[in-house]
């Protein structure tokens, strides 16, 4: 497909260079191309050019959002592989709440979904939406569950029902813009009618096991003025690659073949694999209880689909051990390879350090920094943390690459003025940087002590050794 460049966009801007948008016209064009700014920032655009630019910069996979105060944005992708540019909107993860639970149970589960958090490298990894499941098939129960969830949480919701009566009633009460699950070839016409009647803003999931059928349904939605469409290839719990294949066919059609009717976000339902695994043999059975195997299987299927184009997933379980690998994988896949993963080098006081506190040297790779500070916080470590500019490289990586060295340490010590803050000259090094000790001592004149391998052991190490290290150093440097 044809590549758009900043010049193509620039030509359509007003060219006043007035900087109302915060940039010159040309710089603004670049920002628009990188999708780092919104077109609304330029007040002087003609309607016609605005449309033209939107056409140029809108990604081949449409961005679809749903929710109220909190929103979920799906899709918006431009490339097949993350190395080609970056992926934009992380896979949204939704967890179900059954309407057959008691009021209290519904509220509790909804809160649990909203409050779930797994913290990693300074980021709070969270769940994105709640799926209200019309298990009862009863419209009254469904409506009640919706009300409870909308009162108890601010989470975006997906309304999952097979019953058109339930859907009608639900659309009367739901306050936000919901995601509707789902239309099939058989009931699409009726559902479109209901949406029109209720005159409510919604996003709609289309489900099928056939890409061509999905395309047909998507085209029908567009004709009916419904653009917020999400495609769901059925989940095959026995052979997840059938679903992966469909995801790939859809995404490749959209991105590499320019198929507009397949240019929509993809939803997959690993929840199917969980229920399947409760009643059928799955690989981990031999080692774990049926229930635990089913959870491991659900996580396995989720990770597989996350790797290949799932823009949203619906799952069932809330165990942290099941969600940790899924959320970590999502974080990895959606980090922007164009941006270095680093933090500002410098001096970070941890706890309330004083002139007798230890000085610890680490690197400015974000993973390293957040792991170290997270560990220190948990273990109440008090210290002066020196964060060296290693070009955003981990300890062992920068030792191997030569950025973890005496010259850089010297610069850091001078720039931070750490010498005035402590009355000793001792630096604690990570065990992985033991080989740099001589070089650092020579260039800085400070004494280096090799610490532990892992930052989680530093608290223990200091409690056991710091007083002794300090005393020994003082004795040696009395004069």
């Amino acid at each position: 497909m044809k590549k758009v460049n900043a010049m193509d966009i620039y030509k359509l801007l007003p060219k006043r260079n007035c900087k109302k948008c915060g940039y010159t016209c040309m710089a603004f064009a670049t920002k628009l191309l990188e999708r780092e700014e919104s077109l609304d920032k330029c007040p002087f655009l003609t309607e016609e050019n605005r449309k033209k630019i939107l056409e140029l910069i809108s990604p081949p996979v449409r961005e679809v959002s749903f929710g109220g105060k909190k929103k979920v944005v799906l899709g918006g992708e431009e490339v097949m592989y993350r190395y080609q540019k970056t992926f934009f909107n992380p896979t949204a993860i939704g967890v179900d709440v059954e309407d057959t639970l008691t009021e209290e149970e519904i509220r509790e589960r909804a809160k649990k979904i909203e409050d779930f958090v797994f913290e990693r490298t300074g980021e709070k990894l969270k769940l994105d939406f709640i799926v209200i499941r019309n298990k009862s098939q009863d419209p009254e129960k469904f409506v009640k569950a919706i009300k409870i969830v909308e009162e108890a949480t601010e989470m975006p919701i997906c309304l999952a029902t097979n019953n058109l009566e339930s859907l009608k009633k639900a659309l009367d009460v739901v306050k936000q813009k919901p995601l509707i699950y789902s239309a099939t070839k058989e009931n699409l016409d009726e559902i479109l009618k209901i949406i029109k009647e209720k005159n409510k803003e919604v996003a709609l999931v289309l489900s099928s096991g056939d890409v061509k059928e999905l395309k047909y349904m998507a085209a029908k939605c567009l004709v009916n003025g419904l653009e917020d469409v999400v495609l769901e290839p059925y989940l095959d719990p026995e052979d997840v690659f059938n679903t992966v294949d469909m995801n790939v066919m859809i995404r490749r059609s959209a991105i590499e073949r320019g198929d507009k009717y397949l240019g929509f976000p993809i939803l997959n339902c690993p929840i199917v694999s969980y229920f399947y695994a409760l009643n059928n043999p799955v690989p981990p059975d031999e080692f774990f209880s049926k229930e635990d195997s089913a959870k491991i299987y659900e996580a396995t299927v989720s990770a597989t689909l996350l790797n290949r184009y799932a823009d949203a997933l619906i799952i069932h379980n809330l165990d942290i051990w099941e969600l940790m690998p899924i959320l970590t994988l999502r974080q990895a896949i959606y980090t922007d390879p164009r941006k270095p993963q680093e933090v500002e080098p410098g001096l970070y006081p941890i706890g309330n350090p004083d002139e007798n506190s230890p000085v610890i040297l680490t690197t400015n790779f974000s993973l390293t920094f957040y792991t170290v500070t997270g560990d220190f916080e948990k273990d109440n470590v008090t210290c002066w943390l020196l964060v060296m500019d290693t070009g955003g490289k981990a300890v062992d990586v920068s030792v191997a690459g030569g950025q973890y060295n005496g010259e850089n340490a010297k610069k850091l010590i001078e720039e931070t003025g750490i010498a005035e803050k402590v009355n000793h000259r001792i630096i604690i090094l990570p065990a992985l940087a033991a080989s740099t000790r001589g070089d650092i001592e020579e260039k800085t004149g400070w004494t280096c002590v090799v610490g532990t391998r892992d930052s989680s052991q530093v608290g223990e190490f200091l409690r056991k050794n710091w007083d002794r290290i300090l005393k020994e150093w003082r004795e040696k440097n009395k004069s």
Partner: protein
Amino acid sequence: IDWEPPVEKYKGRIREVSFGKPKSEGGRGVVVKIGGQRALYRFEEPQPNPPVVTFDIFDMPMPSFPKPIRQYFEDVMEDPVEWAKKCVKFGADMITIHHISTDPKIKDKSPKEAAKLMEDLLQAVKVPFVIGGSGNPDKDPLVLEECAKAAEGDRCLLASANLELDYKKIVNAAMKYDHNVLAWTIMDPNMAKDLNRKLIDAGLDPNRIVMDPTTCALGYGIEFSINAMVRLRLSGLKGDELVNMPMSSGTTNANGAREAWMTNKEWGDKKYRLALWEITTGLTMLLCGVDLFMMLNPVAVKTLKKVGEKLTNKFKMPKKVDWIIA
């Protein structure tokens, strides 16, 4: 409304590499093949070979393994031969023996002693072997050479050749004693290409190379591995003859992730996390094109194999399963 599956035409193909030899050729009877793909996705063409798992074993006990993994091997750790047999029971397609006690800093065992163990292992089980050293760049070529000789004609995989050691010695051993070579680089497709070129220049048959572009654990740089592997596989299929080799992944690295091994009440029992970390790391690599998986945890091995073997099936349209009323 019209639509055709977006099938790509690929100029190239991935080379097929085989391990072990049939009895008719004087081997031990089990032959395992990897690679041979002519397409990226199964809907274009099913894979000719399923992914292959090679179990890690060591020539000395590994008390540092986390307990949920150690429990499966505690009774056999003293004896690598029994260890290998147990892995076969757990479904190993192949076995990787790490001769780590040859490291001068560990036990400084001689290459001859390693070769003796190699002979015992070859007698004890039928599956093909990956032969690993200790990671000591001076000693490894000597150990691999001696073991290659002991396993002559058995089509093992010598692990590994890289730019930091005398790779010519390893290349010569592979050609002389009929083995394959693992070419190991660090997450950089250009480095992988460069190493392959050097190995071929040194006399290695390109059809005997398996590439290892390094597997970083989930959460510890897996995105670098994803990029490197995908780029290598795409270049291979597009016809670059210097990188169209099958790929291997040190999936065991996943167990080094803190989220996997660390005891932490808030995170739940680590027996689940260890299994899932290895499964997730492995499956991610599988989707990037990896053919051979070096693994440690029996739960992860079973899961990856069972899920992965489906890659040789034809695409079938999935059916509706109603989970709303489940």
